């Protein structure tokens, strides 16, 4: 049977991808950030997932105002990096897992999560940066990838509760998949940042740290935090942390912290990283 081996939460700041692509990871500005990622890289190398479900938001790349799916699941065979204005990132094309992805679609939709099924999609920094953080710069990504794209940039976004429950439904789907595959789930985005308007550059370190504490300990309560509180306290784009709740919902209520890291700044953003396993993993 399929097995969920853990969850990884990470910001997906585009300039982290640019630092990787342009060989800047050891420069003084970036070194502390990339040093903080090493334990997560070690972890994923050790647990060797066959498939990573990456929960992220698209940034007006594959989807735009003509089509705004709240949840979009990539069931295709491969996902190429999107050209976000500089040409596509020089990273491998992500290989999908259509059979498992269609199982997820079937299971989730029958579990009352009416998500959008996408065969053809390019993926932007929201997905490729977390893969770079986890795996560095391999010739091919060492696992299959299933994109789960959540609308986070256009009001109305799904609530924390909805994302947390979606994670729980994903766990049920994983647990009933007959193939012996090892699955990891990534929740990406955040933490505090505001890119636009007069508050651009807003960072709320104290709130982020408390949010991380509670995210680990009492996820269903964190899921109930209203979006307006997240936007007020952590910036208009800080709301992306809502997507971490999909990852958290897939894990057991009791988790073990494998690695936790926080650093300001990464570009205009507070960088957060968390690796969790179920407390009682066999």
């Amino acid at each position: 049977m399929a097995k969920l081996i853990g969850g990884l939460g990470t910001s997906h700041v585009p300039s982290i991808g640019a630092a990787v692509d342009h060989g800047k990871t050891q420069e003084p500005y970036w070194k502390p950030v990339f040093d903080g990622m090493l334990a997560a890289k070690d972890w994923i190398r050790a647990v060797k997932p066959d498939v990573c479900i990456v929960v992220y938001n698209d940034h007006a790349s594959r989807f735009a105002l003509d089509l705004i799916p709240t949840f979009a699941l990539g069931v295709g065979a491969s996902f190429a990096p999107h050209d976000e204005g500089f040409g596509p990132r020089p990273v491998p094309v992500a290989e999908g897992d259509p059979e498992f992805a269609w199982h997820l679609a079937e299971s989730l939709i029958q579990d009352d999560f009416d998500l959008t099924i996408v065969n053809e999609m390019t993926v932007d920094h929201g997905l490729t940066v977390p893969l770079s953080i986890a795996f560095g710069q391999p010739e091919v990504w060492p696992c299959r990838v299933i994109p789960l794209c959540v609308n986070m940039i256009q009001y109305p976004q799904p609530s924390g509760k909805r994302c947390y429950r979606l994670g729980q439904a994903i766990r049920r789907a994983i647990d009933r998949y007959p193939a012996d595959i090892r699955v990891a789930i990534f929740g990406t985005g955040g933490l505090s940042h505001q890119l636009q308007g007069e508050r651009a550059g807003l960072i709320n370190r104290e709130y982020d740290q408390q949010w991380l504490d509670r995210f680990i300990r009492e996820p269903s309560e964190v899921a109930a935090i209203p979006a307006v509180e997240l936007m007020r306290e952590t910036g208009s784009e800080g709301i992306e942390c809502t997507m971490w709740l999909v990852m958290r919902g897939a894990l057991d209520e009791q988790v073990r912290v494998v690695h936790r890291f926080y650093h300001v700044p990464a570009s205009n953003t507070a960088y957060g990283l968390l690796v969790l396993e179920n407390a009682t993993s066999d």
Partner: protein
Amino acid sequence: MFCKTLDLASNRELFRQDPAQYLDRFPITDAQRRAVLERDWLGMLRLGGNIYYTFKLAIFDGMTMQHAGAAMSGTGMTVEDFRAMMAAGGRPIEGNRSRLENSLRQASGAEASGTALAQPQAVPESSGSDREPAHG
């Protein structure tokens, strides 16, 4: 929307050749048109331009997100000021939560050392720096 079309290199080239003519292809208001041509970043936001769309125009101009952040601060902040603010921990939350919070602080006579939305001084003091403060 105009910004989204800049995803294509061929469109970027057309826009570069004749910005005003390129904008004729889109049903935008005069105010939106002016904001785009004058690169009024805060104006574009107020006229409905989400950052993930207007950032496509910023990338076209060779800007980074720090340039956009500085321009949107609305205080005449330079990109160097903005980077220094981020390196010092970012724009502080105190005084920046909401207009309501700011008016309550003012009403209660709270010491206005924070960087309220309407206040021009947005760069936190960093000791030992000989850098000029941001100009309002």
